[in-house]
């Protein structure tokens, strides 16, 4: 498969193509981190993050590729690793206690949201993820998930979001997060 074919498939949400890319460029991308004071685990993490960024941009139609796929992903890896190195440097300088206390509330809220998402059914999760992460159109979501038409997809999304909304608000009120 050449670059163009792979990219087209990725834009259409073909996860197999993403897996293909992952294996193909694993060594190249992880080498960047490992040869710049990173461990293999960090390298793997950065590469996976970079691929997910690439995936999101491609599937949401926000990416016009003007270089090779590997070049683009490599530059994402570079940026992410640079940020991570800066973050580590900052953390080593700042008072860790202060940093932690400021994030407690938002950390708790995020945890609640994660738990509530897990309580949704598979189809609801997919609809919401494809809508908000891949930014797919209702038509694409309908085709992908086998809905009758776009109106069905729209209704499904509305109901799933409402359900999530209610789950979170219920948990928030328990934890006193609602004003």
């Amino acid at each position, binding site marked *: 498969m050449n670059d163009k074919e792979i990219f087209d498939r990725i834009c259409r949400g073909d996860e197999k193509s993403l897996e293909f890319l992952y294996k193909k460029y694993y060594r190249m991308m992880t*080498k960047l981190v490992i040869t710049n004071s990173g461990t293999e685990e960090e390298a793997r993490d950065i590469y996976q993050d970079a691929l997910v960024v690439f995936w999101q941009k491609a599937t949401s139609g926000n990416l016009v590729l003007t270089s090779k796929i590997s070049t683009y992903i490599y530059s994402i890896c570079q940026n992410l690793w640079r940020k991570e190195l800066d973050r580590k440097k900052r953390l080593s300088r700042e008072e860790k206690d202060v940093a932690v206390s400021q994030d407690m509330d938002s950390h708790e809220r*995020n945890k609640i949201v994660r738990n509530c998402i897990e309580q949704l059914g598979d189809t609801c999760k997919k609809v919401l993820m494809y809508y908000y992460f891949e930014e797919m159109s209702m038509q694409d979501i309908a085709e992908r998930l086998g809905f009758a038409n776009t109106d069905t997809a729209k209704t499904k999304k509305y109901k799933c979001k409402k359900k999530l909304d209610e789950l979170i608000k219920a948990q928030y009120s328990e934890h006193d997060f609602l004003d």
Partner: protein
Amino acid sequence: MIDDKTIETLDAYLRNKLSGEDREAFERQLHADPALKQEYLFQKTMVDGIREARRTQLKTTLNNIPVPGGGWGSALTVKGITWLVVAGVTGTLVYYGLTRAVSKEIPANTPKVEQVQPAESAPATSEPQPEVTPEKAPAQSDVKAPAAKSSSNKNNSASSKEKANDEADQKEAKPNIQVFDPTTELSNEKEESTTGAPSEKLTTTEKASAPTFDVETNSDNKKYEFDYQFDQGKLILYGAFEKNLYEILEFFNGTKHTAFLYYKQNFYLLDEQNTKVTPLTPITDPDLLKKLKESREK
């Protein structure tokens, strides 16, 4: 209570689907309406959570894919060992190549006047020297083993110097090196240690109206875009060679025979011993170029 239309706009805002003006208008509305802002913060947390969940899901999928090589530690070891082996083979071939070049070519040098390459020219330029001469062998101490070099040629492709040495090397290691230096042939300079009359050589080194070997061009091979090889005595040129826009120059001296390709104002050595596909490297030695140009014009 926030109306449905505003909720829709809020949703579009969270998905970055609002145009510049609409986005600014909505942000003003957010600023002015605390209840709307509260709802926005809540929806943002929810949407961020959905995105994070999808991100985690994709990462988990990738994490479960077995990666090639089984770890960097073993990959580095394998790579290191491979390079050590290549370096060892290269060193051995260089040693034998130099040894053979010196022992074999010194006796043959006397009758072969063309086998001259001024010692000063070889190291001075480090340019592609198609000729290999016995006197030059010591001078060209920087030459490396041809086989190993040709195999590592790709690694040094960025260096024209190395490529030049490769071409010289291939000739040097082979016992029947037929290459001669038209520079020395055509030059009347005293630095040449040739004993033959350059003019005599010149007359024999005319360009043949047709090459002594068949020439075939191949523009279909995507792997080779500007390379050549000799296959059973036939020259194959890989790349987009327009018809009638390239020339083959051959220089003869008794049994010795050297061929060059002239294409798009550059000269390229054609080593007939080369049965492997080899990149075409332009000749950069000024003296040699001058002589080739002169020969071509005649």
